């Protein structure tokens, strides 16, 4: 919302030397956020009123003139193409240094002394839209210069001063005042400033009339329309309003139209209470405010043709709806050039109904956005009085032919008891009662202590009507008013104490962090975040079907309706995105997944939440690495995760093949026999469906909720060997389908040399030098003794025994060197 400081000054005598920055700061700290302050005069810097003394032809151009212009103590020659130039005319002159928009378009440019077709020109004589005044001085044709002859300003007067535009505009963050409907208007802000600065607020006396007529208003639904003032006026007509009114409306961001419409907008901007003017000649019978009947039609001012519901409140005449109450007028009753009689509406409508209707038809307006904040019905008095004053000013001959104030649902002022001891405790300091009362009374509250009990510590507070529409309702609200008026910065902080009886011990939280740090720091994976919704393309590529997958009812896009039951589709999308820039990368994500099943809630028996788990998933991606290498890397990361993150270990088995995985390359991850995750190579088919073109990807996913952290960091100490331990590599040819699991078992199970301490896989090789149907496996044996240093003969003997056993059990033969 934009506010004009000079307008606010109509209602409160702010000190003339008040710094605008200070005012903005204080409003921000105590009431609402001031997002910005604009000195309007800055827009018109280096612009002055000029008086054209002479208009001469341009020697080199038919369409241009050379004007001699008095700009105050100096006469300058200015080249101009305006079509309405005349001697004696007052014009806006942009002197060198001023910012203008050529022909009202594009970015502003700085005016310089220049030559136009060979003639030197001092600045520029402006059209209204070149200096941002197109709405205040609409040009009737192209190349029309703005004529300021009507203004009482001498040549050389700064333009802003001449037009009364030397004003400060405050921009208030609307979000910061959703709970303060009383502030939506200059009068409301003036009232708050009066309280902040301890200044008197000017009263707006209610309008009264003794007119007697059969003009009447009927309210059929007082809950939705607590108050409606209708005024019937004769002897009005369409003409421009005063320049001052137009200017103020324009300064705060609306567009002046004509006096009848401007008055209604002006009153709304001043008081926060929307008003509306109907053309009375288009209203048949009297006005009834009622709910629409379902299916009733209404054509709005903006040509929207509505079919109404019975939840919409409408203003009707004998023929049917003429306006959507509190939102917008209808086309039928609108103000037109022929209008001679109007009915002025100053009404109060219930907030939530207005909001529903405005949203239903996607038709939010200045009026509806104010009504939906809950406006105080007492404000109608000020709005009606202000409107009537301007009607009288603009139309001295006007007659009030009808007046009707229906107020079936009077607003109750909020009454609250506040315990002064409670207040002192919560504020952290004891304020004198007089200070508390003073602060509250400045805001319009009535305050009393119980007069009958002398030592009463109870304060009785009655909120003003404008704070009683929901804003102030409990003692905490009163505390806030006291605290902010006293100034939050005036309360001294006290340190928070700590206790020593509960060291934080959150094993699950710690484990999750260790896992993420393990993946990132030790294994080199980059953490990513993706949205909880999945793109249909990846859903179809990865999931066998969408059974049990939850959906959003209003998704961000039609193809993003499923929310994830697995992290893999979004990880695949991330792979597809990143393969454009990287040929090798590793990523992981930790997030929740959701399932349409097992509805329950540990918090409330009436609540039923779907099953939700926390997963961690990732992808090892490479364009150049072999599947074997990629697989071993991924498996290694998972295999060693329990060891490095201190949780119970898990096992790998092939039990249930994932639909997205290459049939030969996948594993399930099991904890205590239960599948808690898996890994595998993204199949060719799934890769293609994901649009992944050049890379191989090993995916993995784990259910974090199933993991079990160890009670503390767990490592086992063994003494360092007293005698040397040797590594001894052997390479043997095995059948191509022999699995390492079997080879390791053959080496380590059953009878084996006492000095054999272990056997580790080094690598395997197929191809040249290895016969068809065979593979070469290199195995590293660890050999050593607790009793002595082994001789090389003893080490070789051990290795020979192992090779013999492998030959016997698996048919392995020593690979020819």
């Amino acid at each position, binding site marked *: 919302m934009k506010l004009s400081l000079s307008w606010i000054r109509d209602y409160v005598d702010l000190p003339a030397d008040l710094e605008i920055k200070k005012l903005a700061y204080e409003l*921000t*700290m*105590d*009431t*609402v*956020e001031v*997002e910005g302050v604009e000195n309007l005069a800055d827009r018109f810097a280096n612009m002055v009123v000029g008086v054209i003394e002479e208009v001469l032809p341009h020697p080199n151009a038919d369409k241009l003139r050379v004007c001699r212009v008095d700009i105050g103590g100096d006469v300058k020659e200015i080249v101009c193409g305006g079509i309405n130039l005349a001697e004696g005319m007052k014009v806006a002159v942009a002197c060198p240094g001023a910012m203008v928009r050529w022909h009202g378009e594009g970015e502003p440019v700085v005016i310089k002394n220049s030559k136009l077709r060979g003639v030197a020109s001092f600045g520029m004589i402006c059209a209204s839209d070149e200096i941002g005044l197109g709405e205040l001085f609409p040009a009737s044709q192209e190349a029309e210069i703005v004529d300021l002859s009507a203004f009482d300003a001498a040549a050389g007067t700064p333009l802003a001063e001449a037009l009364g535009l030397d004003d400060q505009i405050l921009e208030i963050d609307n979000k910061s*005042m959703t709970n303060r409907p009383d502030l939506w208007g200059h009068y409301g802000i003036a009232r708050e400033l009066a309280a902040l600065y301890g200044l008197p607020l000017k009263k707006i006396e209610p309008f009264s009339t003794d007119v007697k007529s059969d003009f009447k208003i009927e309210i059929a639904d007082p809950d939705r329309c607590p108050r409606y003032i209708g005024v019937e006026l004769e002897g009005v007509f369409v003409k421009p309003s005063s320049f001052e009114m137009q200017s103020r409306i324009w300064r705060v961001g609306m567009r002046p139209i004509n006096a009848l419409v401007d008055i209604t907008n002006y009153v709304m901007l001043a008081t926060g209470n929307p008003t509306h003017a109907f053309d009375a000649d288009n209203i048949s019978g009297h006005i009834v405010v009622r709910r629409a009947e379902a299916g009733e039609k209404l054509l709005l001012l903006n040509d929207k043709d509505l079919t109404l519901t019975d939840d919409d409140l409408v203003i009707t005449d004998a023929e049917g709806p003429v306006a959507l109450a509190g939102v917008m007028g209808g086309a039928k009753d609108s103000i037109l050039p022929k209008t001679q009689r109007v009915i002025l509406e100053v009404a109060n409508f219930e907030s*939530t109904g207005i*909001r529903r209707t405005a*949203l239903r038809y996607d038709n939010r307006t200045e009026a509806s956005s104010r009504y939906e904040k809950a406006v105080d019905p007492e404000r109608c008095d000020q709005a009606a009085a202000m409107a009537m004053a301007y009607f009288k000013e603009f139309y001295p001959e006007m007659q009030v032919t009808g007046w009707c104030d229906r107020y079936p649902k009077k607003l109750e002022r909020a009454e609250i008891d506040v315990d002064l001891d409670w207040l002192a405790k*919560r*504020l952290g300091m004891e304020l004198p009662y007089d200070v508390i009362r003073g602060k509250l009374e400045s805001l319009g509250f009535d305050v009393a202590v119980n007069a009958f009990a002398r030592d009463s510590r109870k304060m009785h507070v009655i909120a003003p009507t404008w704070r009683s529409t*929901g804003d102030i309702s*409990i003692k*905490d*609200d009163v*505390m*806030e008013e006291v*605290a*902010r008026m006293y100034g*939050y910065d005036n*309360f001294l*902080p*006290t*340190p*928070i104490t700590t*206790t020593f009886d509960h060291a*934080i011990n959150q094993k699950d*939280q710690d484990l999750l962090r260790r896992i*993420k*740090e393990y993946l*990132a720091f*030790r294994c*080199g*994976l*980059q*953490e*990513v*975040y*993706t*949205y*909880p919704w999945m793109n249909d393309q990846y859903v179809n590529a990865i999931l066998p079907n969408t059974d049990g997958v*939850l959906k*959003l*009812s*209003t*998704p961000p896009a039609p193809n993003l309706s499923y929310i994830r039951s697995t992290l893999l589709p979004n990880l695949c999308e991330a792979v597809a*995105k*990143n393969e454009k820039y990287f040929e090798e990368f590793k990523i992981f994500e930790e997030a*929740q997944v959701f399932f349409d099943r097992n509805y329950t809630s*540990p*918090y*409330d028996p*009436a*609540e*039923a*939440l*779907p099953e*939700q788990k926390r997963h961690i998933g990732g992808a090892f991606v490479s364009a150049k690495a072999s599947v074997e290498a990629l697989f071993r890397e991924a498996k290694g990361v998972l295999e060693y995760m329990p060891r490095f993150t201190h949780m119970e270990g898990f096992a790998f088995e092939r039990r249930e093949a994932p639909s997205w995985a290459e049939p030969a390359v996948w594993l399930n991850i099991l904890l205590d026999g239960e599948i808690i995750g898996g890994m595998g190579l993204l199949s060719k088919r799934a890769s293609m469906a994901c649009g992944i073109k050049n890379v191989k990807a090993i995916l993995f996913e784990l259910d974090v909720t199933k993991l079990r952290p160890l009670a503390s960091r767990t490592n086992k100490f063994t003494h360092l060997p007293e005698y040397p331990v040797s590594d001894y590599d052997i390479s043997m040819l095995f059948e191509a389908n022999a699995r390492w699991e079997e080879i390791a078992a053959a080496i380590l199970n059953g009878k084996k040399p006492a000095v054999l301490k272990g056997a580790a896989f080094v690598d395997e090789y197929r191809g040249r030098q290895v016969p068809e149907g065979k593979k070469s496996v290199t195995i590293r044996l660890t050999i050593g003794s607790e009793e002595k240093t082994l001789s090389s003969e003893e080490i070789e003997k051990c290795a020979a025994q192992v090779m013999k056993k492998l030959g016997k059990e698996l048919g392995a033969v020593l690979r020819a060197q």
Partner: protein
Amino acid sequence: MKDKIQSMLKEAKAAIEAAASESSLQTAKSNLLGKQGSISQLLKELPKMDAALRPEAGKLLNQAKNELNEIIEAKRTEIKLKASEVSADFDCTVPGTLPQGGALHPITQMCYDLNDAFRSMGFEVFQEDDITSEYYAFDKLNFPPNHPARESMDTYWLEGHDSGPTNEKLCLRPHLTGGSVRYMQTHKPPYRFVYPGRVYRNEATDAHHERAFFQYEALIVDKDVKFTDGKVMIQSILSKVFGREVPVRMRAGFFPFVEPGFEIDMGCQVCGGKGCPVCKHVGWIEVMPGGTPHPNVLRAAGLDPDEYTGFYVNIGLDRLVMMRYGVDDVRLFHSADLRFLGQFK
């Protein structure tokens, strides 16, 4: 004999001196001290000598042998020291090899930094589910029944669970505060906990608005908490996270679940409070709402608001990270774009 030894020594020293490598030194050594070496040859001559002269000659030979051994070892060390594995034009300006390139997401980094700070002050870390009911997301937090945030244009409701009583309507949580009520329901006061998580709003996105973003809630509930305590807490936390004193100010703000409510600003870390485009030239950045939990919220958690009060803040993690690193588009956080994420270690 003495002369022979002298001349042998002279030759030997020259041979040792001439050796340029360990292997030529080794050859020289075996020529002198080996089984067929010069010393051995001279030793063989001893028995043929006059018995009276033998002890003297033996002693001399032994001395010569020891001397040669010493010279050889000294020469060996000299050769070793001389032999460099690198050429003189080794290029020290070649860059180092990147260690494992992975990293945590910048949001996670900020979250962990905050966790560490809060934990050092005795706060627990709480985590809750993303899907919640309208009952917990709004009713329990004192949102009026017609509050606009409840509508589908603001909140992501689940298909098939988007109508009916509020305990049956389900949505992606629009904020974390409902989860705080769950914590309070299942724990005994006093409370001191933080609650990081992702929240969801159905709205149009741009560089400053996202549909999914990260919040970090901190809540203290005790019998004697004042809003000034909250200010001290925030100041202390932000100063730890940013590594320097961070000015904090609290100003009036409104949120249904707090009373009184505050907007909490921190001094702009980009310009140091002087004013710059990041802080819209005011020197302050709005980073979190906060306030005293509304009595209705405490009641919803089963507490007596006349007995208990507290302080709550809800830190916008995205905004804090944007501030920390000067990131200018909030949507990058969910982009999974490694060109972006790779910048944060």
